[in-house]
């Protein structure tokens, strides 16, 4: 049964430095993107690496020719091992959206971050 767990104060999470919390036996990374918070299971669906210990970053937009548009800054996490890129909000892998990291609902209440897992 999913339950709501207090993680930390909202101001303890900076963009680029996710808070990695233990929730029961789960390792979960909570990310800040601007003023919103998102939680991902800290296990990569590729080979099980600590996904959330990779850099929070942007990526290049798909284009037709040799043009480099760096976008979605801080919305992506690159897995700590082989560098697959995942959308922090949805958990989907950029190269193949059918591959997804597990996501969890995050709520902010009175300055505290809660994850439902």
């Amino acid at each position, binding site marked *: 049964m999913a339950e709501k767990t207090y993680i930390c104060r909202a101001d303890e999470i900076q963009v680029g430095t996710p808070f990695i919390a233990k929730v029961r036996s789960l390792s979960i990374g909570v990310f800040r993107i601007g003023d919103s918070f998102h939680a991902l299971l800290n296990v990569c669906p590729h*080979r*099980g*690496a*600590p996904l959330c210990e*990779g850099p929070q970053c942007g990526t290049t937009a798909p284009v037709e020719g040799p043009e480099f548009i760096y976008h979605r800054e801080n919305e992506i996490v*690159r897995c700590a*091992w*082989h*560098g697959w890129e995942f959308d922090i909000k949805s958990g989907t892998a950029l190269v193949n959206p059918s591959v997804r990291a597990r996501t969890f609902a995050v709520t902010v209440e009175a300055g505290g971050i809660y994850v439902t897992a």
Partner: protein
Amino acid sequence: MFIVDCDCHNYWSSATVLEPYLSGVWKDMFIEGEKTGPVGAFPHGHRPWFHPQDFSRKDVRPKVEADNYLIMKDKHLDKYDIGVAILTGDEPIEASTLANPYYASALVSAYNDYQINEWLPKDSRFMGSIVIAPQDPRLAAAEIRRLGAHPRMAQVLASQGSVRPYGDPFYHPIFEACAEVGLPFAIHLGGHGGINWNAVAPAPTTFFWETHAILHMSAMSHVASMIAHGVFEKWPDLYFVLIECGIAWVPSVLWRLDADYKALRKETPWLKMLPSEYSRRNIRFSTQPLEQPSNVNHLWAILEAMDGENTLLFASDYPHWDYDDVNTLHIPPEWRGKVLGQNALDVYKRIPRPQAAAAA
């Protein structure tokens, strides 16, 4: 299960760790000329492409020199219960890209001494590699003889990037020395750049992922050359180990070599067996990076065709970005005992047997 990791990179935080192991003009050049700084600053003729994300896993972030070992112990050796890890250094094999063979040889000697003094004592699970600068095979052979009797040196190691394919008689002094001291000759991906200008067959590539995916082209040349020049007739007990050079290409190259040799054997009258038979007897391939087809059976059929059960050696490539752990290695489950450890015992004769027997 007894696990041997044939490719475990021991990093440093700065190449200045070599300063105490250099002397005379080489120390002078190292300090005054190169101003060697942090990781990445070790002297080498630079490769034409760059890594867009750094070479290392992002959950491995040493802050001080001692962290390099402590993190490896925690995140790799202890976590996966590695029985023996063969240290493959990192930047030092890039000394093979330098035009000045005397300086290159001084640098690898310094590295080898540093490895013996500062890495091997850290952990009884470590075995070392005698790194050589193959651009002067006589100096390389001297280095092999200098350290060849060390009980914890498991192999002689050169970069895969080279001036010529390794079977060329130019390199034979190296194999003569390997045979004399009883160590395998291994090559590791890298050393593409500087004097090893012919990085891949047509010319240097542009992007890192494009390059990394096809770097095994030079491994194909080395395999063909080592066999064709008769290295394994001259030194029938010599093992040639290819580390991080891919695997799925092996059967196709051996099929082609066998077919062409059958038609044109008169070119190389010193050979007594088919190329694939020399390969099966004398050549071993490290698993990392194992190709990743969407249907794993396609890979397994290929591994079967190269007798992978007996010719593959496990490698993690810790802590590089394409690291493989023991548990997610995509090989047939019934091969695990051999590939993860037992095959390595045939190749690396100095791995202590009791240690292996106790864990097996």
